């Protein structure tokens, strides 16, 4: 097990005051909070910061940690000496029921974690679990079984909190939207004794789709059309979630024109809409015939695209 330098994690000096530690925590927590942060490793950093704060904010834990830390550096191989914590009393609860590092557990034991005491909140019933999963959009469009691998905290026979990998085969309900939750009854934590197990809530996010962009229950597609198709109107083949359709492009369309196919978005209730956003694709002028066509075009129209700029 590696020694963790909690002061380094929090970016504070070893003699930092309580107020400085609190200030550092708040700043880092805002920066790395998984619900707010855009940082790549936000979740891991947030856990690390939460763990460091859990120790440093408590006078007893900090004193115990300091006594131990004098001879260790971060990353160093570490074993707590026997009875190292005699004379210290630990109490209190920390942020969340996150899984702390082995280092933390070896020092303060799983009982120091707030997650444990929370289990008493509704006696006789196992805790609910929550997880986020990334789904392909097709799972919502068609519904159907998908397999997820989740990491779940679990209490082992010796009462320690461990992280266990678990594979679940879930029937994804047709029309599920990003941010919605699926409740799987009885798939949460086992209850102590003969109580009912908790439920598992899965929050859905979609993987980016190669064709469609998702906005709530609506989908949109960027559809390239030729300049003459946009100007004169045309019927063009367009992919939609329910298959190819012939889409009528009205005459006088331009780049960015939005066409709506009602009810052809995600089949939720009510179903979303499908939007087609037109893009004008220009043919390349790479041979003499194409060049001649462009020249004739220019001569015939005397078009100034910059008229509105006064140029």
């Amino acid at each position, binding site marked *: 097990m590696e020694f963790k330098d909690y002061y380094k994690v929090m970016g504070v000096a070893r003699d930092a005051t309580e107020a400085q530690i609190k200030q550092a925590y*708040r700043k880092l*927590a*805002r920066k790395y*909070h998984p*619900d*707010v942060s855009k940082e790549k490793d936000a979740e891991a950093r*947030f856990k690390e910061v*939460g763990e460091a704060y859990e120790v440093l904010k408590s006078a007893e834990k900090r004193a115990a940690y300091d006594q131990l830390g004098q001879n260790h550096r971060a990353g160093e191989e570490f074993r707590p000496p026997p009875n190292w914590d005699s004379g210290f009393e630990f109490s209190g609860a920390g*942020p*969340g029921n996150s899984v702390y590092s082995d280092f933390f557990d070896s020092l303060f034991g799983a009982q120091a974690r707030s997650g444990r005491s*929370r289990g008493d*909140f*509704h006696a006789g019933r196992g805790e*609910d679990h*929550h997880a986020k999963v990334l789904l392909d959009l097709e799972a919502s469009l068609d519904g*159907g*079984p*998908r*397999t997820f691998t989740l990491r779940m905290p679990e209490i082992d026979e010796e009462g320690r909190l461990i992280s266990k990998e678990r594979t*679940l*085969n*879930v*029937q994804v*309900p047709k*029309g*599920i*939207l990003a*941010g*919605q*939750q*699926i*409740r*799987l*009854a009885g*798939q949460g934590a086992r209850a102590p004794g003969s109580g009912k197990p908790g439920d598992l*809530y*899965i*929050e859905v996010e979609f993987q980016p789709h190669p064709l469609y*962009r998702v*906005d709530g229950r609506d989908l*949109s597609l*960027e559809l390239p059309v030729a300049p003459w198709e946009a100007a004169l109107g045309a019927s063009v083949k367009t992919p939609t979630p329910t298959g190819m359709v012939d889409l009528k492009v009205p005459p006088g369309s331009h780049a960015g024109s939005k066409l709506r196919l009602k009810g052809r978005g995600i089949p*939720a*209730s009510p179903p979303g809409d499908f939007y087609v956003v037109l893009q004008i694709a220009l043919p390349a002028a790479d041979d003499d015939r194409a060049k001649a066509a462009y020249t004739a075009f220019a001569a015939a129209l005397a078009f100034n695209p910059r008229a509105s700029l006064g140029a």
Partner: protein
Amino acid sequence: MSPSDDQAITGTIFDQSTILSIKDLSRMCQVDERHIVEFVEEGVLNVVEVSSEWHFTGDALRRARLAVRLERDLELNLAGVALALDLIEELQRLRRELEARRS
């Protein structure tokens, strides 16, 4: 080996049509009912009143859990949580729009 329909677990969607009582929400978020009432009073959660009893829709679960996390992890007060939730939603909307304009 592809997963087949018959061995898959079926779940229920929590959406606008799911109705939750204050008791449900309190249990699911592991906070007491009084705290849910405070969320409603501060405008963190919207409530549907049915014959003088409070109900919530399924999407309140996500919002309530987010509120509890922010409160706990960032040591925010209720007004701060309400503001953060509104800003997070605004941010998500703007990010979606930006993404739409970029592509």
